[in-house]
């Protein structure tokens, strides 16, 4: 295996393009190293992106959003007060990935590119309307996070393409987001169901909402019907009931070692309600 430490993303994609065999980009490494250890993937070329300037930075964009470097670890997100104030749901999703130790390494982009439908950080990013910058030999383009996953373990990235940054929109007024997942233990598990809600209030009434579900479909999904169920409401009992129904209707889970389809379907409604309440409370708090 060859180990590369390019100084720019352009160099990184050039190296990737020149490599004939199995190539992996290395950021936090918490998935790549596990796959190497298991013998599942032993890359011929491993391209470490952490030597590229800026990849560890979290910066405010001129519009008031955020640009997050691809090697920012979960623990660094959690330590960034202003980001946590704006997008607590995005941060808490990332912070649920693995242990404290894994938090010292794991990254948003790595979690996204691993392609797991159960990735904890992805529903929050999707609900927030986050985008990523995809860099290839022919330049860069902005792609919504929601469009990156293509199926379990797969993304739409082409060989040689790499994500070079992740961007969150401006939080704006009276907004709140949240992520919760269901796991059998209290920590250290893969989500059996994950749900993120991002909403905005006009007074007590929800004026905008996005609902994303994880681990109940081949990719993280955006559930418009679930958002519609709570938009225009004050998140009263009827709205919550409609939200749960919409979430369950959208879920098309499989049964596997971590849970049955029936369980996942039911719990997606439970999680949606709990997350919506949390996001609503945060949005109310944000208004004060």
């Amino acid at each position, binding site marked *: 295996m060859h180990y590369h430490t390019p100084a720019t993303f352009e160099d990184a994609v050039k190296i990737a393009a020149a490599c004939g065999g199995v190539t992996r980009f290395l950021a936090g490494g918490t998935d790549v190293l596990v796959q190497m*250890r*298991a*013998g599942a993937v032993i890359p011929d070329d491993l391209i470490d992106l952490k030597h590229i300037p800026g990849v560890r930075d979290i910066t405010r964009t001129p519009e008031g959003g955020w640009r997050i470097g691809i090697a920012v670890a979960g623990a660094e997100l959690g330590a960034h007060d202003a980001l946590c104030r704006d997008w607590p749901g995005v941060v808490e999703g990332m912070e649920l990935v693995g242990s404290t130790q894994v938090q010292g390494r794991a990254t948003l982009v790595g979690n996204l590119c691993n392609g797991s439908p159960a990735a904890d950080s992805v529903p929050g990013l999707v609900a927030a309307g986050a985008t990523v910058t995809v860099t290839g030999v022919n330049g860069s383009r902005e792609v919504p996070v929601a469009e990156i996953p293509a199926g379990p373990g797969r993304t739409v990235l082409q060989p040689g393409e790499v994500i070079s940054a992740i961007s969150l929109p401006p939080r704006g007024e009276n907004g709140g987001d949240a992520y919760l997942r*269901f796991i*059998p*233990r*209290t*920590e*250290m*598990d*893969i989500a*059996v169901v994950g749900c993120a809600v991002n909403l905005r209030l006009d007074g007590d009434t929800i004026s905008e909402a996005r609902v994303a579900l994880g681990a109940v479909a081949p990719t993280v999904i955006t559930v418009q019907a679930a958002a519609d169920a709570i938009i225009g409401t004050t998140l009263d009992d009827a709205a919550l009931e409609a939200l749960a129904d919409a979430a369950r209707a959208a879920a098309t889970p499989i049964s596997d*070692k*971590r*849970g*049955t389809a*029936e*369980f996942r379907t*039911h*719990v997606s409604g*439970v999680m949606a309600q709990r997350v919506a309440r949390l996001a609503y409370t945060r949005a109310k708090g944000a208004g004060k």
Partner: protein
Amino acid sequence: MAKDEFNTEFKLVGTRPNRPDGLDKVTGRARYGADMTMPGMLWGAVVRSPHAHARIKKIDASKALALEGVKAVVTRADFPTGLTGEDWNLQENSMAGDVALYDGHAVAAVAATSALLAQDAAALIEVEYELLPHVIDVDDAIKPDAPAIRPGSADHSVPEGFPPNVVRYIDYGHGDLDAGFAAADLVMEKTYLTEATHQGYIEPQACVGQLGADGKGEMWVCTQGHWFIRQMCSAVLGLEVAQLRVTASEIGGGFGGKTMVFMEPLSLALSKKAGGRPVKLVMNRAEVLRATGPTASASMDVKIGMTKDGKMTAGKAVFRMQGGAFPGAPVDSALDCAFANYDMPAVYHEGFDVLANRPKAAAYRAPGSPMAAFAVESLVDEMCRELGLDPVEVRLKNAAREGTKASYGPTYNKIGLVETLEAVKAHPNYAVPLGPNQGRGVASGFWFNYNGDTAVSMAIAEDGTAQVSVGTPDIGGSRASLAMMVGETLGVPYEHVRVNVVETGALGINEPTHGSRATFATGKAAVIATEQAIAEMCRRAAVEWDIDPDAVEWIDGAAQPAGPNAGKFPPMKIGEIAGKMSTTGGPIAGHYEGFPDGVGVSFGTHVVDVEVDPETGHTKILRYLVAQDAGRAIHPAYVEGQFQGGAVQGIGWALNEEYVYGEDGRLQNATFLDYRVPVASDLPKIDTVIVEVPNPGHPYGVRGVGETGIAPPLPAIANAVAAATGQRLRHLPMTPVKVLAAIQAGQDG
């Protein structure tokens, strides 16, 4: 015995000194299995079957052997033939013969100059398989038309005409069962299921083995018992036992799983083939889970009769257990434990040891007892609910006591079950009011404890300090408790005693640290050896004083004339006697070789409060209490540690731990990510009460404490979940999926 009355005031016993291995273990200096390197050492890797059941048609290692730095490849063809019985089982499990019997079964091994190279070489070994039908579940495996895994492997106990995978059959009991059930007001019969779990020690198996062409070998290995490793490796490889010298490393947990060989013989076989260079083999976690001892899975029918005032009149247990592709599921001890808590006029037990395409089961903490406790203690709780009776009072009413004829036959000596039940009744946890969706569960458990072959040697050093050589690896602090008992007996400070776990060349055979035997058996042996040394020191003093040795007694670490008639001499301290030993007759030592008698059984009672999330089925442990009879706690902190550790393993078994197999017979959760042992945030404090009903068979009253604690959590939590939800879960683990389904079904799960 020096102190066979139990009102003695002790100086050391019952205190909490720091453990002698503590400094090494908090600084990273302690050397475990994988921490050893030897000059000229090679690294090994093992090729394992990806199939649950497959004929091995061809193994081609030519590509691996062509790699520079690859020094040896071994397959079953490199092992001796003609083994029988358990020796053959161990050999077959170490390395598959004609047929791979489970996912993870070793089929070849390779040694090379680096770990990575060995792994790369292993990946290049090509194995051609012919798939055979497999069976995983015990209730499938016992069917008459199940794929026969090893025809002809049933032993003498199995009557003609039994299904092909039944390899042992047990039935026994006493009393008039029909009359017992007829005398009952309520008879209930239910079926309970438990899944296979793994010991889950954090240190994977690791060893460095060296074997020369002259048949002499050495091994460094993490194990609960290095004499067992020596005997088993010798049997598997056809070596002379005494030519193999085995040293036990520090051990990173075992819980029964490190009492037999897995890949250890492979390191020796590779070493021999590589010209005698030492070969290090270290399992990864997936190998540990796929190929080392899980426990059995069980399917159990239990029937109990009870009068309306709670007297148990009869009990019947029919247990089916699979212990992998080899005989050895702990169905007999499970049956023995089933009704051991109770004084019942009639009991009957029937057991089936069944083969399935899974790894060979190893012992796991009180083998069989947790499954039995789950079935019986759940049913007792169901009947208490049905009859509106208090579960602790019913247990007290039926509790086994001194003089009770045990369900497994003999009559109990002094035991402490009643005392544990009284202890939980008196504990504040038992009185905490519960809120919505919360429930409290109670259950008791039992383990025999064990003695086993034991050899100990102790010697006095020139300055009067003492060394004790033992053969039971220290897993939970036994070096501390042994030093305390020796120090107490010798009348010297704890710090003056050093306990060493020595290699196989230094003592007669020792059984492993298993069966909760280290503090009992090695402890008793060490005390007897110490008394020998004391007798010798008294003799030396007598010679010096020119009086009869019988006129000398040993008090507070010194020889003293035994009364005014013996003569007037100032006490001769141990240091003084030791300082002149070279001129008074040479070394002063004591030793013990034997099978220490006087084992005392241990009962425990646990109380757990849970809260169940009615929307997700998630169970949270709110409070947990262990009360167990320790006989006497030598080092109370380590006794508490055994109680707490056992309870938490039981909690894992009850809630989340299980082997999950796919339709293809492959283990799906061979990682700590998906084999879900309890983590710190899952748990509350584990409260403990050390009950002390001293064991008359031990000089300090010790009963083994290591194992009993894993049994009660399974039923206690099931009983608590039933109390919280109104639903009875009879299939472990009680995952959120199962609990939610039971809640939703709204009827008996």
